[in-house]
């Protein structure tokens, strides 16, 4: 019996040192359903079904070296089932960029997870993971992972709070053309007589600090229509046409009068706005290209 106690204490001590309660490597961990390169040297990120606890199955982000699992982190949104099924398209999780999206579970227990490579340095890629969850009300979150030697690290996260929130983390090429940056958009549709809110952040990788840093963001491309004297009339206009996904925002965010409101769609890329302009939509007055000024609303 004393030997058993000794072994238990030894195991417990090892577990504390290795943080095994949260990240114990399971020998039988399911292989990744898809992999994304972390850069040269055969290091990849993988997405795999996770184990289930009390009916909650959190997909897992893996770090693999030459195909061998070296570390993993379970994602925050857990589905009602573990098995991952490939979605067609990118499930609206990223503008234009083709990303792989995988869904586990169904109806309220459904969680869709999409992986997107981000060139953080000319030689190394991070992994941006988008998740949407729920059926009645959709919630989104975004996590950025990096490989730090044989460790997988989550270096940035953004999640939506309660209510009719919306968010997107868009990968765009940086000015140098050799790396990417992230435009993080966060919106809220309160309904009723209050205007929607939309904020934007430009996030650039700081390789020295190994973190994303907020950088100034002057304008974002947008498309707007109308100029309404109240939120109520703007909402009515949005509900009666193909514009129901447009934001009801103060016109001064687009260079208009502070007392007016417009219907708007804002994107991280100009191509997205051009595609939106090309989408058939009998909006009156006609839609027009605009510039969204996030200044003053960057959190």
């Amino acid at each position: 019996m004393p030997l058993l106690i000794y072994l238990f204490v030894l195991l417990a001590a090892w577990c504390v040192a290795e943080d095994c309660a949260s990240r114990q490597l399971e020998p039988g961990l399911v292989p990744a359903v898809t992999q994304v390169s972390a850069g040269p040297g055969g290091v990849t990120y993988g997405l795999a079904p996770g184990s289930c606890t009390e009916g909650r199955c959190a997909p897992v982000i893996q770090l693999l070296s030459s195909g061998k699992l070296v570390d993993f982190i379970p994602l925050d949104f857990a589905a009602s089932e573990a098995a991952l099924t490939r979605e067609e398209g990118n499930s609206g999780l990223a503008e234009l960029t083709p990303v792989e999206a995988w869904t586990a579970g169904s109806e309220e227990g459904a969680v869709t997870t999409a992986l997107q490579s981000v060139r953080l340095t000319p030689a190394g890629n991070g992994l941006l993971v988008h998740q949407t969850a729920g059926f009645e009300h959709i919630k989104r979150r975004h996590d950025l992972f990096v490989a730090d030697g044989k460790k997988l690290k989550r270096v940035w996260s953004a999640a939506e709070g309660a209510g009719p929130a919306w968010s997107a983390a868009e990968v765009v090429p940086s000015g140098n053309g050799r790396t990417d940056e992230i435009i993080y958009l966060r919106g809220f549709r309160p309904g009723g007589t209050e205007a929607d809110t939309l904020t934007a952040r430009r996030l650039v990788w700081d390789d020295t600090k190994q973190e994303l840093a907020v950088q100034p963001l002057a304008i974002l491309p947008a498309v707007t229509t109308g100029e309404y004297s109240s939120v109520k009339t703007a909402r009515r206009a949005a509900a009666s046409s193909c514009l129901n996904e447009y934001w009801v925002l103060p016109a001064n965010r687009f260079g208009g009068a502070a007392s007016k409101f417009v219907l708007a769609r804002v994107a991280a890329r100009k191509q997205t706005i051009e595609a939106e302009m090309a989408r058939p939509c009998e909006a009156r007055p006609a839609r027009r290209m605009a510039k969204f000024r996030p200044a003053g609303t960057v959190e």
Partner: protein
Amino acid sequence: MPAITGSVGEDALNKTHDVALVQAMLRIVKNAKGSPYLGGHYDGAYGGITKSAIIAFQNDNAKTIQAGQKGKEKLGVVDAAGATITALSAALPATHKELRIIPNTKTVYLEGAQADAQASANAIRNDAEFETTFKNLLAKLVDTMYADHKIVLKLTPTGRRRTFAQQAAEVNTKAGPGESNHNFGRAADIGFKGFRWIQGDGTIKTDADWLNALEVASAAKANALWDARDAIAKTLPLFRLNFERVHLQLHDQSTFSNINSLVKLLNTAGKMKWNKGYKCDFGLGGALYPAGTAKQIWAGTATVTKANLAAALTAKEVAAQSKKVFKEADITQKQIGDMQKALKAEFEAADTNWIKWTKVP
């Protein structure tokens, strides 16, 4: 008057919520020089700064508090029913008199108005668009939340029953018309009306129904308040969803399928025969054919093919002992359009009869 449940100070009980409340009061109340007794932000963690602030307040109010004297509070300790908390309460400005905190949370807030809570509960009880059992439980939640915590809950602008048409216009959902619990008066989005919480620096923040500002300041603190609401909801019982905090509903979501439940209602309220995945007999009594998603059917773009409609019409002829056979080429686009309208009419009948909805696993 703000109340603590246990002592705060050196070697005291120092429950998180009590510490937070005392700290917040010391942050709000100012000394003779116009400086707050607590220099930093309140956080619910007891330490040297809090200790110094308590002692400074006790010393400045030595005549009334008499800390350290026989039979009085110890210097540096605030007792639950002692002179220090009474003096602190008296020193609060009129704007901050009704401070409260929920046990095991860290957010100090101001009491809501009883009239608002009553109006909110009454509006729910009188709402004809809610199922009776549900609205009574929801109103009870509002009553209990106010009785227990002096917090006013209210329905959000889009939190009531939604018609199928309103559901179709929703953008932040995967649930199509008839696939949301909101469509059947058995769910509501119920948030916090005019919730005024005390920021770290002692100033008042009036939040939106969804605690957006608190969420930005600290998601954990916002979740703690939703948890307090849900702790009451659970006893009624009302059920939350896994991912959306503002939503509460009559039934445990893990016990039923929204899609299967809608299929049952379609069979109850409509004229056609429906099965899982919106397979339908087109009202012709034969086999069932896929009609598309709820969104497609409601939009009038149900996936009715000429082949399926021809087969369904032929089956009806066979059932009537007729030998007439419909071929795909016999089906006109108008017939397809008419069938799409008929399918939408089934959904409209379900919308009209929303009260008859029952849950199906």
